[in-house]
């Protein structure tokens, strides 16, 4: 009799499907980090003086900072002098249209299923693709332009919309915010920029795909998204990287600004290379994501974190204006030797502000999954409410789930609700479904997707399907 274990072993050995390397010529800044590196990056990007100054201030602050150690992830010390801080596909010439993007790179994005081609217009998603550190192509730019929406690479924004960038850069995540954010501020190479003008509802999903390709490179992209009063935008972010035996550092910063009455939905499917079964290789993912919501504004973070050897991220909301709403929906998976320390911060400053946290942690293999969340209700945030739900699912008995909810309430008229659960996907659940005629594979998918349902339904349709598949792949092999 074949047991479920056989099927599972098979699936377990399935390789990281995005682990190919693209052979393109890259232009790099020499390994190591100094003021000269910062200047070199800034110069390569023809940046204005104010931005260089800002980077240098961040760099100097970073020098004074210590790497945080409070988190529940463990990794060998990172040698910040052994990283290449800038790598860009060597441009063959100035690009005039999409068709002129390096065919190798286009082939890469095609493999990733990213609709860069005009023929993918039907899918209706505008994409900005970041290859290593540089944005290579942005689609649908013209259509968006008609509505006054700016969606372009960060470098382009710096050159073409310097006032907007200058007005908002660092207003949510200051250059001194934390060790990794300061590092990013000093050396960020590119990223995406988006501005949606007053009252405009962005008619399509905006999407950025990040790809780390070159060896020994760190990726430090920076995203800045501004929704002006009453605007609406839904933004998707996807990430992949090739299989490499070395660990690679990814320290990104995302800043969201939702002005009065604006809505930003920010969804991430993070599938950086997680390392192999024994924990060799994989991305160290240290990310600072934060949004500021003004009066009546709403920010929703949705994330599906299946990749990276180490995930360290806390997409947060500063609910500054009255009636602002913050939401955080997260599925974080750790399999094999992966470690995740993730969660959110909801800081209630305005009156009648609302926040919702739904966190689903799945640990399998020897994976360690930590939820870390802060709900802070300030003195002035009268009538505010928070609802938090943290569920952990354990698969096998060598993994771990940890929950650290911090709650600070300084206003008596506010309500904070917290629910937590830990459960184990058991042989018995799988057996139950098989006894009703379902295959092991279908059974595992059904159980895991059921567990994550509340988060998946927050994702845009196309992404939800992808996320479900991804989750299946990340976990297959972990049961049995």
């Amino acid at each position, binding site marked *: 009799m074949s047991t479920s274990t056989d099927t599972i072993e098979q699936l377990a050995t399935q390789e990281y499907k995005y682990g190919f390397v693209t052979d393109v010529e890259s232009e790099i800044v020499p390994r190591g980090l100094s003021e000269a590196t910062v200047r070199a990056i800034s110069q390569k990007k023809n940046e204005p003086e104010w931005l260089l100054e800002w980077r240098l201030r961040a760099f100097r602050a970073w020098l004074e900072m210590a790497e945080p150690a409070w988190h529940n992830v463990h990794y060998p010390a990172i040698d910040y002098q052994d990283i290449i801080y800038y790598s860009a596909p060597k441009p063959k010439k100035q690009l005039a249209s999409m068709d002129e993007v390096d065919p190798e790179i286009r082939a890469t994005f095609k493999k990733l299923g990213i609709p860069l081609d005009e023929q993918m217009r039907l899918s209706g998603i505008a994409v900005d693709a970041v290859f290593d550190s540089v944005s290579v192509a942005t689609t649908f730019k013209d259509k968006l332009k008609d509505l006054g929406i700016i969606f372009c690479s960060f470098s382009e924004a710096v050159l073409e919309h310097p006032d907007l960038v200058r007005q908002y850069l660092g207003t949510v995540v200051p250059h001194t915010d934390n060790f990794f954010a300061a590092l990013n501020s000093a050396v960020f190479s590119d990223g995406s920029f988006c501005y949606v003008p007053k009252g405009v509802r962005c008619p399509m999903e905006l999407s950025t795909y990040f790809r780390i390709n070159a060896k020994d490179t760190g990726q430090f992209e920076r995203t800045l998204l501004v929704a002006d009063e009453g605007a609406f935008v839904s933004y998707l972010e996807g990430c992949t990287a090739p299989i490499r035996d070395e660990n690679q550092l990814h320290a990104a910063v995302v800043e969201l600004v939702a002005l009065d009455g604006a809505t930003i939905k920010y969804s991430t499917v993070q599938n950086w290379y997680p390392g192999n079964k024994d924990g060799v290789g994989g991305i160290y993912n240290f990310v600072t994501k934060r949004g500021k919501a003004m009066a009546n504004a709403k920010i929703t973070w949705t994330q599906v974190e299946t990749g990276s050897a180490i995930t360290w991220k806390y997409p947060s909301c500063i609910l500054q204006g009255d009636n602002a709403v913050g939401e955080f929906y997260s599925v974080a998976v750790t399999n094999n030797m992966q470690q995740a320390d993730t969660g959110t911060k909801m800081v209630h400053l305005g009156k009648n502000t609302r926040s919702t946290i739904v966190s689903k942690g799945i640990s399998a293999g020897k994976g360690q999954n930590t939820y870390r969340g802060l709900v802070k209700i300030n003195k002035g945030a009268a009538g505010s409410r928070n609802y938090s739900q943290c569920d952990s699912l354990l698969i096998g008995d060598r993994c771990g789930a940890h929950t650290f909810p911090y709650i600070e309430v300084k206003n008596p008229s506010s309500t904070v609700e917290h629910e937590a659960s830990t459960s184990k996907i058991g042989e018995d659940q799988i*057996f139950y479904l098989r*006894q009703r005629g379902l295959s092991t594979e279908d059974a595992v998918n059904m159980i895991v997707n059921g567990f994550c349902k509340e988060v998946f339904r927050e994702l845009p349709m196309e992404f939800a399907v992808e996320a479900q598949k991804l989750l299946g792949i990340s976990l297959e092999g972990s049961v049995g």
Partner: protein
Amino acid sequence: MLQITNLHARVDDKSILRGINLSVKAGEVHAIMGPNGSGKSTLAGVLAGRDAYEVTDGSVTYKGQDLLELDPEERAREGLFLAFQYPVEIPGVNNAYFLKAALNAVRTHRGQPELDAMEFMALVKDKAKLLDMDSGLLSRPVNEGFSGGEKKRNEIFQMAVLEPTLCVLDETDSGLDIDALRIVAEGVNALRSPDRAVIVVTHYQRLLNYIVPDFVHVLSEGRIIKSGGKELALELEDKGYGWIEADGAAVARG
């Protein structure tokens, strides 16, 4: 339909079943009774193919095939249904969605076309009435937040939908109050038919007042030590398992 011959099984090196012989024909209802730890639930688990049990000797033939060679889902698709003693909760998975997937897996196996959502819902509503089930339970996650009685009722409801040929009820009566017990028993009785067999595993005689068996077998220390008609159950209720176990021990020694 089912032929169990000299079945031996163990869990973690502890031998639980030590030579079960049992023959079940279509249309029959067999009750398996016995004290705690006699191997009743192990037998049900072995029939359904639970991984934790290792069969060390003997054979089980079901509809002419070697049952022990089949995966649990293959057994299910071949019409073997286990009503669990402890129905498992599957959070987030909608009861109706789960049951449709199961039913279509079984139908595909039987060479029948899959049911679409409309046909499925019509079928299910019908069966829910049979068990006096609140149709609201259909849209809730599988067994999650169900009361003990609702879980057991849901098991029999699934059985009614999947229309198996061999039904194994593992302590379906435990945790039920008298009213729920009657409803569940009526549901099972409604499914009795000449081409379907039922094995009722129970600790108490009470359920057998409502599901009247053709045969009663007493299991003790992994063996069937006595078989008889429905009156054997009443006798056990009066005298307890002690008298028969003493008897059985004597038989075993002799």
